[in-house]
């Protein structure tokens, strides 16, 4: 069964370095090390800056903490505003993820395994959605959400986020579902399960790698989303973290250290999620890139 799970991302097996890894040339490590340094340097600046005092930052903007102070982090962690925003972001992220996975899996199943007249048209409709980024739709979307009475609600950002995540989700999931061998479906049919039984008992578990990929992508996108909440959430009580970070940094613009602490705490969840599932996401992307 596990072998089956891997089918759509067969290339992945070669990713995993096997026992015998040669050290390679030192130059490679130097360049790789430099590049990694450039990538995480600014992130480290944010995290370390949170451990400094404003006096330290003013005196030596690019220095290291000395002494290390944890007050900024403790203050942010003790503030109810921060936790409310974490809560809002978490609820929005979880609901978006569940919605994307549920709706995406169902419609991808139809697109991958049912033969009907409108199949091609439906796939093209969703694929065309890739061409409609939220930027273009944001103003009418705002008006629509307002008319639906969903302003300042989590629902007001979750529904559009699900809708805009569907094209990517479908493009990633359809190949996964197509790769499930026909024999499994036939075997399930012989065992007396209908097509829907097959869907719930076989397809859902078998497409788990793809589901994890789209789920993480949806969660991280929702966690980081800025433009939509900017339009939909005007009330500070309903702010998600990105809006909160921005509000906090303009409100406490002189308190740089606290802004940095707030900022670094707000990126932790996305980073954790991502590092845990990095391989899967790259695997899923590989499938999508190959078309």
């Amino acid at each position, binding site marked *: 069964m596990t072998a089956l799970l891997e089918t759509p991302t067969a290339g992945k097996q070669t990713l995993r370095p096997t026992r015998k890894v040669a050290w390679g040339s030192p130059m490679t490590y130097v360049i790789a090390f430099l590049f990694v340094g*450039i990538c*995480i340097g600014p992130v480290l600046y*944010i995290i370390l800056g949170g451990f400094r005092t404003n006096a330290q930052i003013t005196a030596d903007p690019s220095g290291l903490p000395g002494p290390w102070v944890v007050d900024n982090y403790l203050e942010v962690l003790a503030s109810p505003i921060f936790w409310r925003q974490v809560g809002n972001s978490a609820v929005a992220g979880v609901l978006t993820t569940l919605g994307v996975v549920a709706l995406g899996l*169902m419609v991808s199943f139809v697109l991958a395994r049912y033969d009907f007249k409108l199949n091609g048209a439906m796939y093209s409709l969703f694929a065309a959605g890739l061409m*409609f980024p939220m930027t273009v739709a944001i103003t009418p979307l705002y008006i*629509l959400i307002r008319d639906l009475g969903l302003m300042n609600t989590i629902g007001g950002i979750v529904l559009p986020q699900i809708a805009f995540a569907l094209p990517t989700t479908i493009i990633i999931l359809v190949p996964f579902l197509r790769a499930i061998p026909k024999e499994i479906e036939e075997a399930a049919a012989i065992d007396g399960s209908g097509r829907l039984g097959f869907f719930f008992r076989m397809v859902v578990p078998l497409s788990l790698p793809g589901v994890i990929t789209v789920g993480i992508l949806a969660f991280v996108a929702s966690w980081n989303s800025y433009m939509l909440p900017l339009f939909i959430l005007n009330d500070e009580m309903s702010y998600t973290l*990105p809006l909160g970070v921005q509000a906090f940094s303009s409100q406490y613009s002189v308190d740089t250290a606290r802004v940095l602490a707030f900022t670094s705490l707000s990126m932790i969840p996305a980073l954790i999620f991502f*590092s845990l599932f990095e391989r899967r996401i790259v695997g899923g*992307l590989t499938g999508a890139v190959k078309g």
Partner: protein
Amino acid sequence: MTHSLGENTATRTASPEGPVVAGGGVQTPSPAPGPRRGKRTDWGKALEIIVLSAPAVVVFLMFVIFPVVMAAYYGFFKWKGFGPPTEFVGFDNYLTIFRDTAFHDALLHNGYIVVLSLLLQGPAAVALALLLNQKIRGRSVIRVLIFVPYVISEVIVGTGWSLMLQSAGAVNDLLTKIGLEALAVDWLSDPRIALWSLMIIISWKYIGFAVILFLAGLQSIPEELSEAAAIDGASYWQIQRTITLPLLGPTIRIWAFLSIIGSLQLFDLVYIIWGQYVSATAGTSTMATYMVLNGRLAGNYGYGNAVAVVLFVISLVIALVYQRYVLRRDTEGALTERKK
């Protein structure tokens, strides 16, 4: 789309509330009725299709397609956003857009960003991917770390970089420390430099994505090819140039496509770093920040929608031209004949 689907089943099942009925249908895996197969499975199948696809189709049409269509409609009105739009102004909004020098500037900036993103990130990302594709120790850790900038939000990137790039910020301080005071400039507000600062930030944020994408592409190239070439006496560079790069072509072209579209739609980073008003004077405004500034913030919703339409048409034309002439070979299978 839903309509035609809905009618389709309505005639077949004689039950217009397809989805509702089907909600119950899910739980009835009635032990296969052997004989009456034909017609029954037909509707059963139609019903299943409706039930499974309707939620996604409805949500998608309502929150993606409908707003885009409405943008086109609102764009023809002078409208403050309250009540139904009544003051039809035809193409006036569009004429204003095309005459506004602020929009020309924004368009020009988008043009720079598109080109510079491709030139700055593309070659560097290919080189890094080739480098990291070698079997080296700690590769999986490296891959996670270079993806970090891509994973953290635009708000965090914007906040962090604008603090670092302040004239008395960490970057200038660091440059002074290593004896490069001459390079310590006013990164964010000098109009001659701000766009380059933006490019640095954009490259930093998105190059990891390009590298990972290229790495994924490289890993799908069979090793046998380069092994065979090596046996035939080809050097490392010959192999990369004549085998690896051409085979990586499709991935590079897809990345370039995503990069172009992203550059045209750029909003978050500019809006966060330069705020609502400074971006125009700092020379970093984009079509999207122009749209938000002159649409929603100015209360001119009709005008904002017209800008959205212009932005959309420009992106669409570029996307179609690109797909027609560059991506054609790669996507032929992906979007069309993938039926079975």
